[in-house]
């Protein structure tokens, strides 16, 4: 039983990035083909539907559609934090797969114990601030160009 369980966990850990890549790839294709705002192919944000407020992820799907069509600025207006977080996230995934390629200075940041807390604070602050109804904060809410 223990043998079985430990090997199953190892398998899930290894399959997790692959499943993420396959699922993410399918999502990207769907996002390229269908416009999230108009096609009705993608669900609305449940948080926004329930409360009327924007969550940190609101606008991400529309922004990804814009990005895939090369409209960087339109994507940025829809969800700036998502667009800004894409390069670091991509490099994090890459360096998890190929640790040898990871530059040393990244380790110096990520080895600090407070570093995930800092990200949590940024996300929570972003959540609050993009719901404030006056400039400049309302610029962070999803905008259509």
């Amino acid at each position, binding site marked *: 039983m223990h043998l079985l369980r*430990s090997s199953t966990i*190892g398998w899930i850990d290894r399959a997790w990035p692959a499943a993420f890549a396959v699922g993410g790839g399918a999502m990207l294709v*769907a996002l390229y083909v269908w416009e999230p705002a108009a096609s009705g192919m993608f669900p609305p944000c449940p*948080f926004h539907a329930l409360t009327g407020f924007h969550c940190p*992820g609101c606008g991400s799907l529309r922004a990804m559609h814009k990005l895939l069509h090369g409209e960087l600025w339109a994507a940025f207006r829809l969800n700036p934090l998502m667009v800004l977080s894409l390069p670091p996230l991509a490099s994090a995934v890459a360096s*998890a797969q190929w640790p040898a390629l990871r530059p040393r200075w990244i380790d110096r940041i990520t080895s600090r114990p407070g570093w995930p*807390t800092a990200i949590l604070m940024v996300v929570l602050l972003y959540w609050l601030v993009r719901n404030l109804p006056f400039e400049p904060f309302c610029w962070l809410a999803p905008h259509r160009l």
Partner: protein
Amino acid sequence: VLVAATAGVPVLLDLPKIAKRTRCATRYSAIKVCYIQGGKDYDLEYSRETEAWSNVDEFDAASANLLVLFLAAMLTSRSVLQGRFLGDMRPEMFCKKCGAPNDDSATMCSRCGTALGSVVAPSGEPVPNYLVYAILTTVFCCLPFGIVSIVYAAQVNSKLAGGDYQGAVDSSSKAKMWALVSMACGLVAVVFYIVIAILSVAAGPGMNR
């Protein structure tokens, strides 16, 4: 191992390999097994240093198989490999570098001379915090679960810094779980919507006017 054991072949475990596979490398220095069968006392010992069993000769196949099953169950549980089965040895008392057990008061490893005490993770294995997945699901899945995952990811690092290895492992698995829950919810919702949209298109304009 199980197949060989039930076939009646005496098998002894490849302990270094098991330790490697369960990612609990170097916590033990020796494993002693006392086994009584038919009024006879067997005293086996596996040494990490020589990577070999001693006193195996007088052991008969049947009891060897029982032992193998017992060890297989025992060794693959992490707490055993992390050294807790050795009674009151604390993880800090094992050398981080070579795994040798040391006295409570020792400041340097008695075998290899490495400084003791500055143990970050007792198992020597970094604890993943799944922060990337937490952020991805927060930013894309539009659900509060991703935030929960980031909270647990933050706990992993702060607990590791405070020396609470077991707590960090717990938080790590929770961070993973909530990222998975968030991702699953998002995927299910998207697939559901796409299926509904395709169905309503296929049903024709009469349904969709």
